[in-house]
C-alpha cells in the first residue's frame, strides 16, 4: 500500500460529497490516461457560485481522496475561484501525495473544470478552458 498522509486516509475512509446531483447544472467526466480510471463531477450553480458539488469516482485510494477534497475546496467558491484549484493545490491540501499518484490529482481538477465548462456551455456562455487561459497568459 502506498504511504498516504493522514489527510488522504481520512478522505478515503470518509469521503465527503459522494453521489450524483439529479438536476445538476453541469457535469464533468474525466478519464485517466495513465491507469484508465474515471471521475465524474456534478455541480449546482447559484449566483455564479458553486452551491453544491458532488462526485463519483472509479479509481485508487488517492483518486477517491482527491475527488473528496476537490469537492470540499470547490463548494461555495465562485466559478473563477474554482477554476484556480490546481492539481498542485489539491496535493498540498492533502498533505502531499506519493510521486506516482500525482496524476490522480490532475484528474480531480480536470473533472471539476469540465463540469464548469459544461455549465457555461449550457448557459450559452463562452467556455474559456484553463489551457486557453494559460496560453493567453
Amino acid at each position, binding site marked *: *500500500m*502506498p504511504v498516504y498522509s493522514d489527510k488522504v486516509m481520512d478522505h*478515503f*475512509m470518509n*469521503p465527503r460529497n*459522494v453521489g*450524483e446531483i439529479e438536476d445538476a447544472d453541469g457535469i464533468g*467526466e474525466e478519464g485517466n490516461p*495513465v*491507469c*484508465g*480510471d*474515471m*471521475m*465524474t463531477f456534478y455541480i449546482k450553480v447559484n449566483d455564479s457560485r458553486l452551491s453544491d458539488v458532488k462526485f*463519483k*469516482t*472509479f*479509481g*485508487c*485510494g488517492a*483518486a*477517491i481522496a482527491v475527488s473528496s477534497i476537490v469537492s470540499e475546496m470547490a463548494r461555495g467558491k465562485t466559478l473563477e475561484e474554482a477554476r484556480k484549484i490546481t492539481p498542485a493545490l489539491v496535493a498540498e491540501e492533502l498533505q502531499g501525495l506519493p510521486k*506516482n499518484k500525482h*496524476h490522480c490529482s490532475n484528474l480531480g481538477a480536470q473533472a471539476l473544470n469540465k463540469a464548469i465548462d459544461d455549465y457555461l456551455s449550457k448557459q450559452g456562455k463562452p467556455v474559456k478552458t484553463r489551457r486557453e487561459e494559460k496560453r493567453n497568459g
Partner: protein
Amino acid sequence: MRRVYLDNTATTPLHPEVVEAMLPYLRDIYGNPQSIHNWGDAPREAIEDARAKLADLIGSRPEEIIFTGSGTESNNLAIKGLAQAYQGRGKHIVISAIELFSVIHLAKTMEKRGFAATSVPVDGYGLVKLDELAKSIREDTIVVSIMHANGEVGTIQNIKEIAKLLKGRGIVGHPDNRLPGNASFCIEFIEGEAMLMLLSSWGIAASSGSACTSKALKASHVLTAMRIPPEIAQSSLLFTLMRDNTEEDIEYVLETLPPIVDRLRQMSPLYAKFLKKQRGGR
C-alpha cells in the same frame, strides 16, 4: 479485530517444522562448510543431508541439486545455465507471456546476448496456446520455460501436452511453480487498490493486479496477456491462502468483503452507468 493474512504468494510464514529444523543452525551451529577446520563439519553435513533428502523426493541424484538464495536466482541459474551449456546446439529459448518477471526480463537479457527468445501467447483463461507453442519451437530451440501453475490467476498448464511437444527433440523444459489455495477474482466497477485499503482497515491482507496498485501504473502483465479489458483488470482481487487460515477466517472475509464492494460501487460512475443501462435508460 480478527486479522486474516491472504497474501501468501507474496510472502508466507515459515512452517513451524522448518523453523524448528533451522533453529540450531541460526543459533549455535555455524562455520563455513568449505573450511578445513571442524567448525564447518556440522553445517556441511546438514546441507548434504538436506540435498540427499530432496534428491530422494524428486528422484534425482544429490549432485544435481543446487541451492540458491531466491526464486529469481534459481530461474536465472536454470535458464542461463542451460543456454550456456547448449548454445552449441542452438540459441533459441521459448517462454510464455505470463511468466514471472524474473523469467520475462531474463529472456530480454538473453536476446541482448545473442540468443533469440519467443513469448508464446495465452488464451482468456491463461492457458498457453499449444498450437502457438508448437509453431514457436524451432530447430535451434534449447529451452522452453513455462510455469506449471500461475500464482496470480491460478491457471494450471497442461504440462503433459507441453512435455510431449518437447520430447525427443533435445529441448529442456523448465516448469516453474505449483500452487495451492489461490482464489483470483475481478469485481467489476471498482478498483483494486481501494479494495485492498478497505480490506486492510478490516484486518485482511490480499493483493491485486490493478494498474493503480503497481508502481509502474501498469495492469498485471498476466491479465493483459489474457486480454482482460483494462477496466476489468482494474478490479482484480487475489486471495492466496496458507495452512494456518481457518474456516472462520474465510467466513470473516465473506462477511467483510460484500459491504466493501457495495461501498465502492456506490462511489463508482461505472456502476451508476451500468445500473442506468440495466433500467433501460442510457
